């Protein structure tokens, strides 16, 4: 956090000053470690084992926050008899077949679980369209639990519960059994963390949690860039829920996001599977219409029960008066998905000639995305490419001086991609909002005009839309009926934004107002609770409704922090409804009183008859804590006064996910796609539901005991430096940043340097089956060999900021990585891989190819290496386990 979010880290230092204990768990000793009270080095890719160990410590030692767990989580829910845990299937959950899970056996007893977190598309179950070859509980591999925090899966019926938590099939007991294996000794085997140090962390965490105290977890892509990244976060969620650290001040699991508006671009998604506000993009189905699309949600508890209002208001915002109740509010105009259309899939489709045009806007995949060679192959096989950026980044120049050209694999003359480079305006040259990592929208004002051809992306898309529309309008006479039909959704799109100035810049505030939403009288709405499903309201993103309340740009509020309370509600605007901590009803006990005076945040005021406190209560303000809903109620009205997790379909936080995840209802430790070790916990080596793409340009390494695994004996993890930003597009061109970190390097331990004869400041070549890159060597005691599974394990840290262009140049770390994805969110594993390292610079041209081929052949790599869903060596069971059967790992 000190490395990549130094200014945010001031609050950690502030906490430390007031006595907080800071624990840093990381493969590398970083600038954060230097400030921590305790640093725990662990093997990259073993965090679920570590977190599982902590969960086990909390459960087995009875350290959980019982009142919180019983009342606010699904611990008492009873799971159906069909569910079988990894304990009994040696690393698989019940329902595994053909590389994926049928999740029906994970459901609660007495309920029908209705959808996944990401894919609210319960078509099969509701309408029975698909045959038995598609099990009805099967999660579709689109959508994503990234919606967590805003949305949640849906189920119907009231599950059986046991508030004593003793029922053998209640979630709590399942959890206990599942994590019993995660002992400090197992943690040591997987993570290389010795038990004494592990206990120190566990005890500190437990001591600092409960009614009087809270602990917070902060993480970044070190947790998400894994083939089981979602389960990493799930593990942290379970731990924090057991300790009562969610929805309370000083608690939480805080994602430290790395781009100015990466949160905003998820809320208003430039993502394939979502519509604004985490409404799923529709899947292709026969008889799909607005009613059937929202049917799964309409009967649900919680605020997702109003999804129809959110969606209709969005459609009204987009198609205005053309969207009517008679035409399903233009629902049919939304394009339909058929499976995964994520970026990796798309790039492979580019290579295969299926994609012709590509816009790359403020991103640099030619060096910034895993398996960069694959990305450039995609770029080289397009008809046309538009790149918009501040500087002449590698993605714009790949055809001229990319590694393939430099190595003589191809020539510019051979690349047919037509490239448009359009210079972008900087943040100082345009109005607009960024949404920060705390979900807070902050307006930045235009300070100066952009120069020459530099334009905002708002300008570009607005004028591109205008141009396309005017061309189509002119040509309507010559277009076929089918073409005219598909043109209507463009021509009838609401696209009439006011503009200003010589360059005809669209008014960003007008766009924000459209996002906020308006009522039938064209007055700005103040809250999403005002949205209606009858077409009388318009709203571009329901969770942002209120950002333009009272016709005021609330995101532009800059009342000095010193003149406000510590929650500073008058600086910027946080979704939803300007709440700074979501689910903050959980900061009070079921009766509505703060858990402790010390940790008071929001509470029920019986005299006023409303919820009040330091923040905007994340609860129906007038609903008393003892409210019991009408059994027939749905939506928010169906929530009890004591159910704080208002977006969840049962008002509770989920320790166990009966639906919504593709790779298990609970986290289980699997090795990364590429690992020098065998899985110490289960016979199953890797996440069985992970996404792999065996292709010639994307081979995988053997792992563990697989033949050839020793050819890549070292673990590497990619990382960021304070001095640079992402793939370098905003830092490698700046002299004052470049001089601070002026060369691509790798950092490794003195022990590894001795083993491989690497010299400090000398050159090293790092090799995987994808690529060989060169870097300067930084030998440092901060990189520590670990004792894991009886052997010494070396890890190499590789920063990913470099590329061939700019003031400071170097090979890109992303060349090394293969593409293997988390199945829920299609995010790749960059934080744990295997490699070899040798002294000296890398070869060029054909020699480079030969070097990589040599490694591939020595490791015996084929297109099947590492791609089987389930492989590994079954572990002998200890007597205590008593289960010898039911393994499903030998296929």
């Amino acid at each position: 956090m000190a490395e990549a979010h130094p200014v945010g880290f001031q609050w950690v230092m502030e906490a430390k000053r007031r006595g907080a204990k800071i624990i840093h768990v990381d493969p590398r000793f970083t600038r954060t470690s230097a400030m921590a009270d305790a640093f725990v080095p662990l093997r990259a890719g073993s965090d679920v084992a570590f977190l599982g160990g902590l969960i086990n410590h909390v459960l087995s030692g009875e350290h959980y926050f019982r009142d919180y767990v019983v009342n606010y989580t699904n611990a008492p829910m009873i799971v159906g008899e069909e569910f079988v845990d990894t304990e009994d299937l040696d690393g698989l959950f019940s329902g595994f077949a053909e590389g994926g899970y049928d999740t029906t056996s994970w459901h609660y007893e007495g309920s029908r679980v209705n959808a996944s977190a990401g894919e609210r598309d319960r078509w099969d179950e509701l309408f029975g369209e698909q045959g038995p070859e598609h099990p009805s509980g099967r999660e579709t591999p689109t959508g994503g639990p990234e919606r967590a925090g805003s949305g949640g899966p849906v189920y119907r019926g009231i599950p059986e519960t046991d508030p004593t938590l003793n029922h053998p099939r209640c979630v709590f007991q399942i959890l206990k059994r599942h994590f019993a294996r995660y002992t400090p000794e197992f943690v040591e085997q997987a993570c290389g963390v010795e038990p004494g140090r592990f206990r120190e962390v566990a005890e500190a965490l437990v001591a600092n949690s409960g009614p009087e105290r809270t602990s917070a977890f902060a993480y970044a892509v070190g947790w998400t860039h894994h083939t089981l990244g979602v389960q990493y976060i799930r593990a942290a969620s379970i731990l924090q829920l057991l300790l009562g650290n969610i929805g309370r001040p000083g608690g939480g699991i805080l994602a430290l996001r790395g781009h100015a508006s990466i949160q905003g671009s998820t809320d208003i998604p430039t993502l394939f599977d979502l519509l604004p506000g985490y409404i799923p993009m529709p899947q292709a189905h026969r008889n799909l219409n607005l009613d059937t699309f929202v049917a799964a949600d309409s009967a649900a508890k919680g605020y997702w029960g109003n999804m129809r209002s959110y969606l209709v208001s969005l459609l009204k915002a987009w198609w205005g008066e053309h969207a009517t109740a008679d035409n399903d509010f233009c629902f049919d105009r939304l394009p339909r998905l058929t499976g995964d259309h994520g970026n990796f899939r798309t790039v492979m489709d580019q290579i295969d000639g299926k994609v012709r045009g590509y816009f790359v806007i403020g991103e640099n995949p030619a060096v910034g995305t895993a398996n960069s060679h694959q990305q450039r192959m995609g770029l080289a096989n397009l008809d046309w490419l538009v790149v918009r950026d501040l500087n002449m980044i590698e993605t714009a120049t790949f055809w001229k001086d990319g590694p393939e050209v430099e190595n003589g694999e191809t020539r510019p003359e051979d690349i047919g991609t037509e490239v448009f480079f359009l210079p972008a305006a900087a943040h100082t040259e345009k109005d607009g909002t960024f949404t920060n990592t705390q979900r807070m929208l902050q307006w930045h004002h235009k300070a100066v005009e952009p120069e020459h051809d530099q334009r905002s992306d708002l300008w570009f898309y607005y004028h591109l839309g205008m141009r396309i529309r005017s061309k189509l309008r002119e040509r309507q006479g010559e277009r076929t009926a089918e073409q005219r039909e598909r043109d209507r959704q463009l021509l009838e799109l609401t696209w009439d934004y006011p503009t200003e100035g010589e360059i005809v810049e669209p008014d960003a505030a007008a766009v924000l107002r459209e996002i906020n939403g308006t009522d039938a009288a064209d007055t700005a709405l103040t809250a999403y609770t005002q949205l209606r499903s009858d077409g009388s309201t318009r709203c571009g993103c329901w969770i942002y409704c209120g950002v333009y309340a009272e016709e005021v740009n609330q995101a532009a509020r800059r009342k000095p922090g010193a003149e406000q309370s510590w929650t500073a509600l008058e600086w910027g605007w946080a979704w939803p409804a300007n709440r700074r901590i979501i689910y903050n009803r959980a900061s009070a006990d079921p009766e509505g009183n703060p858990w402790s005076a010390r940790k008071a945040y929001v509470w029920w005021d019986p005299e006023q008859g409303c919820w009040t406190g330091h923040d905007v209560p994340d609860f129906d303000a007038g609903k008393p804590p003892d409210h019991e809903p009408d059994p027939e109620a749905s939506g928010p009205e169906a929530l009890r006064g004591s159910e704080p997790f208002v977006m969840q379909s049962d008002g509770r936080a989920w320790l166990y996910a009966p639906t919504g995840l593709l790779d298990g209802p609970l986290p289980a430790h699997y090795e990364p796609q590429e690992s020098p070790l065998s899985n110490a916990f289960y016979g199953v080596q890797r996440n069985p539901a992970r996404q792999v793409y065996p292709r010639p340009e994307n081979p995988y390494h053997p792992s563990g005991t697989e033949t050839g695994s020793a050819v890549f004996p070292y673990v590497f993890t990619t990382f960021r430096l304070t001095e640079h930003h992402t793939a370098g597009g905003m830092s490698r061109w700046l002299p004052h940043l470049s001089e601070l970190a002026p060369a691509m390097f790798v950092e490794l331990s003195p022990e590894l340097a001795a083993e491989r004869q690497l010299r400090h400041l000398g050159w090293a070549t790092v090799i995987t089956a994808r690529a060989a890159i060169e870097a300067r060597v930084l030998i440092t005691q901060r990189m520590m060999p670990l004792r894991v599974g009886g052997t010494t394990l070396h890890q190499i840290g590789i920063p990913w900021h470099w590329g061939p262009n700019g003031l400071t140049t170097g090979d890109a770390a992303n060349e090394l990585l293969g593409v293997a994805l988390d199945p829920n969110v299609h995010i790749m594993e960059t934080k744990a891989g295997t490699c070899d390292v040798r002294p000296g610079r890398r070869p060029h041209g054909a020699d480079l190819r030969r070097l990589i081929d040599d490694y591939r052949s020595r490791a015996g790599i084929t297109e099947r290496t590492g791609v089987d869903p389930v492989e590994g060596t079954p572990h002998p069971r200890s007597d205590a386990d008593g289960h010898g059967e039911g393994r499903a790992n030998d296929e």
Partner: protein
Amino acid sequence: MSPDTGNRLSGPLPDPSQEAGYPPEHPQRSGFFTDTSVCIGCKACEVACKEWNLLPEDGLNLTGMSYDNTGDLGADTWRHVAFVEQRIDPSTRSRVDIGMPGMGAPEPAPQQEAGDATEVRWLMSSDVCKHCTHAACLDVCPTGALFRSEHGTVVVQDDVCNGCGYCVPACPYGVIDMRPDTGGASKCTLCQDRLGEGMTPACAKACPTESIQYGPLDELRERAEQRVEQLHEQGVTEARLYGHDPRDGVGGDGAFFLLLDDPEVYGLPPDPVVTTRDLPAMAKYAAAAAGAVAATIAGCFLGGGR
């Protein structure tokens, strides 16, 4: 020689600005207290300084000294963050291996195993011109290009400096240097222009963790003493101040530090002495000699005028 000349070139001096001719109502003496125990090594100070003072990049060199690729203070680098990697014994908090700070490749630890009794410590410290109470750079400057400001700081004037370079070796800390592009001497001005507007110097303003604190020197010294006490109470017994003492060889620094190890470890001289301390004694002889020369020359004129 006036009796207070000794005071003027070394030893405690409560108010250098007043001594430099500013009226009594001049601003309080300001400076930096750099608390390295909270420095995260982000180098925001280096960049903020260069951005404000419009200093150029001065070399894309990977030094190998941990994450320090700046190397040293210089004419175009007025803030420099040093990085020191150490192995320490957590029970005694003493260094296990004492070497040059972060220089070269560290040796493998002897029989280092996970859970061994050694831990890594990474010290970071943002260095800057010390704005000495007795500033040798200023005292040797023959053109008056260096002067004592009303804030008690030491500032170079580009428009006066003739590039003689005397100040460079005079500095006991090796701070001031000559800019290759202008040929003039150059160093931290403590943002003289910003102070005039009541603004905080750029480095201190940017510092995310308040490692660099700007303020009246008296206040800073008090705060620093408290911080050391607090750290000692927390068991960080190695915390100590550097450059805060008016009785030291430079009469105390206007920019002083809280360190977690010996100054040498950070590349700071352990016992800096103003290089002009002995100047009065020398000057006495010089003055006598000059008097004799003057008399001789006068005699020549007198003799040849007729």
